[in-house]
């Protein structure tokens, strides 16, 4: 455990020196928030502030520091970075998941998601020790989702923009897609998780670029795709990057649509429904061009230490504290 603590301390010092040398401002924003960005697929933790004179207010643990970092960018902070704890509910507890995890998030002004690849490569060159972790060293491998779907599932996504035809392709591949209606994203992920993700090259960090536009998020749209990439190392998702959406109307419509989806889904399941700030889109009236990257630091640390399990990297993982309960995947 002591080794893991020392390793983390060294990694954080290197991350800080990298960004400080490049004039990013390190920020420290709240973990407890009044509202979150609506993301129907990320379950949240809810809690409450109680005071006998002021009254009570619902609060939510952040699943990422995005809301606050974007507010600072809108205020003119310039390039910013943060090392923070983030919280996601309901995900599995085990080898590569812990409901509380550490995230490095950095936003580079004037950059797009392609520039962020170069910046992240420089960061990795800076933090990877000289020996022993060749599979983490840049240059990164690069593949678009469109190319990956062609290569591993023989599907041309541009030809299958409707769920109906994509489901037909999935069935041809032997997948069981139920007849009931499902979203394009769900059918896409059936194919992606069965044929693509397990076969992605693992010898180098892989930037999987240009996610389908149907997977809605706050990355700019570009035709059938989004200016967004994820990085996989050894088959594990480690980073996510956007060319950040700056159009207030697009952000407003995203909020409206995704919040409605979130409320509908969570009313059915009974899980926490966080508030969303109806005026959040207003900060984009004057928002600089920028690209943001989020890196799961516990996973990165695990890979740097040559381990395959977060237990032994995170000092008190929830799975350890719960014992070997049913929810733990060992």
């Amino acid at each position, binding site marked *: 455990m002591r080794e893991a603590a020392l390793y983390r301390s060294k990694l954080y010092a290197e991350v800080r020196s990298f960004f400080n040398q490049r004039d990013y401002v390190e920020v420290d924003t709240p973990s407890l928030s009044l509202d979150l960005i609506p*993301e129907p*697929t*990320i379950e949240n933790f809810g809690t409450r502030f109680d005071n006998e004179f002021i009254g009570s207010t619902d609060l939510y643990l952040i699943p990422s520091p995005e809301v606050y970092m974007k507010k600072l960018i809108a205020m003119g902070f310039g390039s910013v970075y943060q090392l923070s704890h983030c919280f996601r509910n*309901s*995900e*599995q507890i*085990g080898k590569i*998941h812990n409901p509380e995890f550490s995230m490095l998030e950095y936003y580079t002004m004037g950059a797009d998601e392609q520039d962020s690849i170069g910046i992240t490569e420089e960061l990795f060159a800076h933090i990877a020790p000289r020996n022993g972790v060749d599979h983490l060293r840049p240059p990164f491998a690069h593949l678009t989702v469109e190319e990956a779907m062609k290569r591993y599932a023989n599907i041309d996504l541009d030809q299958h923009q409707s769920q109906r035809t994509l489901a037909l392709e999935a069935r041809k591949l032997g997948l*069981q897609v*139920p007849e009931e209606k*499902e*979203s394009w*994203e*769900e059918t896409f*992920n*059936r194919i*992606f*998780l*069965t044929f693509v*993700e397990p076969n992605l090259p693992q010898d180098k960090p892989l930037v999987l670029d240009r*996610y389908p536009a149907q*997977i*809605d*998020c706050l990355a700019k749209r570009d035709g059938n795709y989004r200016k967004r990439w*994820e990085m996989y190392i050894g088959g594990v*998702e480690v980073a*996510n990057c956007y060319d950040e959406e700056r159009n207030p109307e697009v952000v407003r419509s995203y909020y409206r649509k995704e919040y409605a989806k979130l409320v509908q889904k969570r009313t059915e399941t009974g899980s926490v429904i966080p508030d969303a700030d109806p005026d959040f889109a207003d900060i984009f009236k004057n928002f600089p061009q920028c690209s943001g990257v989020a890196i799961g630091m516990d996973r990165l640390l695990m890979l740097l230490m040559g381990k395959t399990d977060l237990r032994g990297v995170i000092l008190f993982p929830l799975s350890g504290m719960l014992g070997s309960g*049913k929810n733990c*995947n060992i």
Partner: protein
Amino acid sequence: MIKAGQIDKGTALLIKGQPFVCIDREFVNPGKGSAFVRLKLKSPSTGQTLSETMKSQDNAEDIQVSDRDSQYLYNDGENFHFMLTDTFEQIEVPMATFPDYEFLMKDGETYRCTFWEEQILDIQIPPKVIFFVAEAEEAVKGDTVQGATKYITTETGLKVRVPIFIKQGEKIRVNTETKEYLERVNN
């Protein structure tokens, strides 16, 4: 019917008419996508494994299983032979389905088995079992290195790494999942 998200290790399912037992499951939340579950399934009749990725909300056909006591008789190199203790009926299970079990089961011992119709889906080996040390190397005299270990062989043929003080003829408790030595058992 069962939701895919509720399938756990040990859950028995019917896939295309064939029974399968879940041996591993992993939840996956692809970036900004819906919740999925990746299942590793094993066919008890052939030992064949299968990977399935399902949406957590998908329905799967689970099957009703029952536990019955069965006495382990012997293996013929291909099949384990059991006898149901209630009906005295004899049943075969391919050894390939349960790798290593030949070294964990004792002839004549009764095990709880999970059945679907007349087929054994799972043999429940207790998590800790006492074995007899059938063969052990002699400790080298003067070997006082702390934590020194050696290998012994149990009456079932299982090789276990044990502390050097364990002698032939003694009994030891073993974790049957990891096959690791736990402690010496005094008579």
